[in-house]
């Protein structure tokens, strides 16, 4: 990754969408940035934090997205340009704050605030395909969606100016195929921002009393709508009177261009790419629809543009209005992300064209030869991961306890437990903090006759993010439950971001460590700590806690993320090998079937277990647990 503060004005760079947004924010004079890590939004803050010292900006990993947004809002009240970035699910956490801001305004110090929300169509790294654009409309925030890396950078700068001018926060919709793809960006000039924050104590900013403030906001949005009708971020390419008009936004634009090119429909199909999505540029859209015979909407995930387009056409009372095709008509699926083939299929169906990606012979070879050869590669924990040991011990403890303990889980690398290749110990899994929250409910059902033990799981970062309120609730309402904190010392899943318990800030400075263990003790919980690699002691402790009916118990299973350990220590702890004399191979299969460690597998030629040298972390877990003592380990000097 290039140093984002040292790019030369006028030059081209290969930037990730998130880096383009970070660079745009720097050029716009951002001085305060806050976020909680969440794929695919994480790199916006990572990038800003990486240049925080040299640029003098503030960059923080906040405890959660709501806190990040409130911190960023405060900095805007103090007159700074601020950014809060989050993933789709993070928005749900931040929403209570966001919903109020534009009624209250950003104060009187000429601050500006940009909120970037990264959606994840296709749920590459999310629990759902939430389309957050509706929410921008609900919060009355001007919304833009970039269709290229250059636009991501330019819209970021534009929205900071718009935010300051109208004194409301603005919204940039990011999405996986932009956030985590890379493309060409020509950057402009960056000058260090040096505005000194201050607040006029005589002023009050709040949404109360809402209706008159709402009226002012409605007027502002009407003015912005006029601006958006003329915006340079909306553009048409194609014939004057197209047979089909594609109206698209975001990733829909490059996919539509590909599809039109592949089907050689350039003379028949025009593409109206929208960048301004709220307020919706209805007049612009209608003016193009008037010239077309049919309309196809290409967007992701929900029919947001489609709904607004249909409303605009209805308002315009067009005679013989073109048919508007898309999700409603069944031409494009409601489910999943855009890709060129999806648009090719829709165009093929509209124009009655037959398109085959490749000939039947090749397709047959793929089906006959390639498919049977391609074993699936599900997601599973890294070799050496502490979660493998934790879940093994937990599964054993639940079996031995024998009372069908219910396990409510949470979001982190340990989520892979419920994936097809995981051990599938957990019973429910929803969102950040949901593990402890749901355990609160199960833990209070005893009075109604529920007789199963209850275990709520969270990670260390998840503990600080959203597990403390349900922990307090559990104590207050006398829930009987065990919380297991899988403490691997880092926010591992999103790429090793520090958190309140790490003793380091986003900019790698030393900071007080918030001690989750002491916090739980101070609340009156029974607190225990184990190393999950001692699977026997861990399982025994869990069994003991399940039998303890005295309220809330918290067990910290503490061991550093193996990837983090490797980064810091740069060597394996043991030398590990298989004694093929002792190994019972497929008659046993404990290491590769039960533990499912990618570092060891079944070897067809010998019929025994074999270390996968390129992968094995030599953590020694399989050596400790091998029923035949056939896996040997020797400490490295």
């Amino acid at each position, binding site marked *: 990754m290039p140093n984002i503060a040292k790019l030369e004005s006028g030059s081209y760079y*290969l930037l990730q969408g998130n880096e383009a947004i970070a660079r745009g924010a720097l050029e716009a004079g951002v001085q305060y940035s806050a976020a909680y890590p969440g794929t695919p939004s994480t790199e916006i803050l990572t990038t800003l934090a990486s240049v925080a010292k040299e640029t003098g900006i503030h960059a923080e990993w906040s405890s959660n997205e709501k806190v990040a947004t409130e911190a960023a809002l405060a900095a805007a009240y103090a007159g700074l340009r601020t950014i809060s970035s989050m993933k789709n699910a993070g928005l749900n956490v931040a929403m209570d704050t966001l919903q109020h801001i534009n009624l209250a305004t950003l104060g009187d110090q000429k601050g500006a605030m940009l909120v970037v929300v990264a959606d994840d169509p296709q749920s590459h790294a999310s629990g759902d395909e939430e389309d957050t654009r509706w929410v921008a409309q609900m919060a009355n925030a001007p919304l833009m969606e970039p269709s290229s890396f250059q636009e991501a950078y330019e819209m970021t700068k534009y929205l900071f100016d718009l935010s300051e001018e109208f004194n409301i926060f603005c919204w940039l919709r990011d999405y996986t195929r932009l956030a985590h793809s890379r493309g060409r960006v020509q950057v402009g000039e960056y000058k260090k921002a040096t505005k000194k924050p201050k607040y006029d104590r005589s002023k009050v900013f709040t949404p109360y009393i809402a209706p008159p403030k709402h009226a002012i906001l409605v007027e502002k949005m009407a003015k912005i709508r006029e601006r958006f009708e003329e915006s340079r971020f909306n553009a048409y390419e194609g014939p004057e009177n197209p047979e089909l008009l594609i109206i698209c936004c975001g990733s829909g634009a490059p996919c539509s261009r590909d599809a039109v090119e592949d089907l050689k429909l350039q003379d028949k199909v025009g593409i109206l790419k929208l960048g301004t999505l709220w307020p919706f540029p209805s007049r612009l859209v209608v003016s193009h629809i008037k010239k077309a015979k049919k309309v196809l909407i290409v967007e992701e995930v929900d029919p947001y543009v489609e709904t607004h387009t249909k409303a605009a056409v209805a308002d315009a009372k067009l005679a013989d209005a073109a048919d508007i095709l898309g999700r409603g008509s069944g031409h494009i699926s409601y489910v999943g992300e855009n890709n*060129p083939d999806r648009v090719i299929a829709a165009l093929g169906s509209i124009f009655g064209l037959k398109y085959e990606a*490749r000939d039947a012979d090749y397709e047959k070879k793929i089906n006959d030869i*390639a498919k049977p050869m391609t*074993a699936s590669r*599900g997601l599973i924990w890294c070799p050496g991961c502490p979660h493998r040991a934790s879940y093994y011990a937990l599964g054993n403890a639940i079996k031995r306890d024998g009372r069908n303990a219910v396990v409510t889980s949470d979001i982190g690398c340990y989520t892979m437990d419920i994936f097809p290749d995981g051990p599938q110990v957990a019973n429910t899994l929803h969102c950040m903090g949901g593990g402890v929250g749901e355990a609160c409910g199960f833990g209070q059902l005893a009075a109604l006759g529920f007789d199963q033990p209850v275990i709520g799981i969270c990670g260390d970062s998840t503990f600080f993010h959203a597990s403390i309120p349900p922990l307090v609730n559990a104590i207050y309402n006398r829930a009987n439950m065990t919380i297991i904190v899988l403490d691997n010392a880092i926010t591992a*899943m999103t790429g090793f971001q520090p958190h309140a318990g790490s003793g380091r800030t986003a900019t790698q400075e030393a900071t007080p460590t918030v001690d989750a263990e002491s916090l739980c003790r101070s609340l009156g919980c029974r607190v225990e700590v184990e190393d999950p690699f001692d699977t026997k002691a861990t399982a025994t402790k869990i069994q003991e806690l399940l039998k303890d009916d005295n309220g809330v118990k918290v067990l910290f299973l503490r061991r550093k993320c193996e990837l983090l350990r490797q980064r810091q220590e740069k060597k394996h702890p043991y030398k590990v090998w298989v004694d093929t004399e002792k190994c019972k191979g497929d008659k046993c299969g404990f290491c590769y079937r039960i533990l499912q460690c990618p570092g060891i597998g079944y070897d067809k030629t010998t019929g025994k277990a074999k270390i996968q040298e*390129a992968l094995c972390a030599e953590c020694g877990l399989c050596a400790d647990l091998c029923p035949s003592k056939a896996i040997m380990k020797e400490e490295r000097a």
Partner: protein
Amino acid sequence: MAISADPLNLVICGVGGQGNILLSGVVGGAYLKKGYYATIGETFGAAQRGGAVFSAVRVSKKREYGPLIPDGQAHLILGLEPIETMRLLQKYGNPNVVCVTNMYPVIPASVSANKESYPDIEDLKKAITDLSSKAYFIDATSIALELNAPIAMNIIMAGALLGTKQIDLTPEDITNELRESMPPDRLALNLTALERGMKAIA
């Protein structure tokens, strides 16, 4: 002779943790510096280590292409693992595709667990050859282990890609990118890796 196509669609595939992202950035960055539009599509972030991952590198003189390649339209597949080449051939392969594959298997959990099987290496070579116009094979992981640096396998594959002379990039183009994308203390090793990869194919 280098593949002549605009856009040029390269697929770089492998297993999470093999260095796919660095490799696609090096190749895409080298094209960008030569005045091309370059777009790289990939997904990462949710503990993809051990999972199948791929990058799509799309290069053009005409315009900026999106990060996703239409089905059946890859010109070259650079596979860091043999069944990953097979997997991506299924989606992007066509009779004209060129494949460059590291033949060192990374056994999936499903195979380790003996629930599915991993094909014989010779059968894999035959199938990849059968499904492409030209297929190159290299044991890049073994070379990396010889260099005592399993992590440098991706750069050995960059060397292999250059060795095929199927793309319009020179060793200098790649070397310049490496210089920019890694700390100086790791450069020498990676330049050796690049060299070894080139020699293994040429």
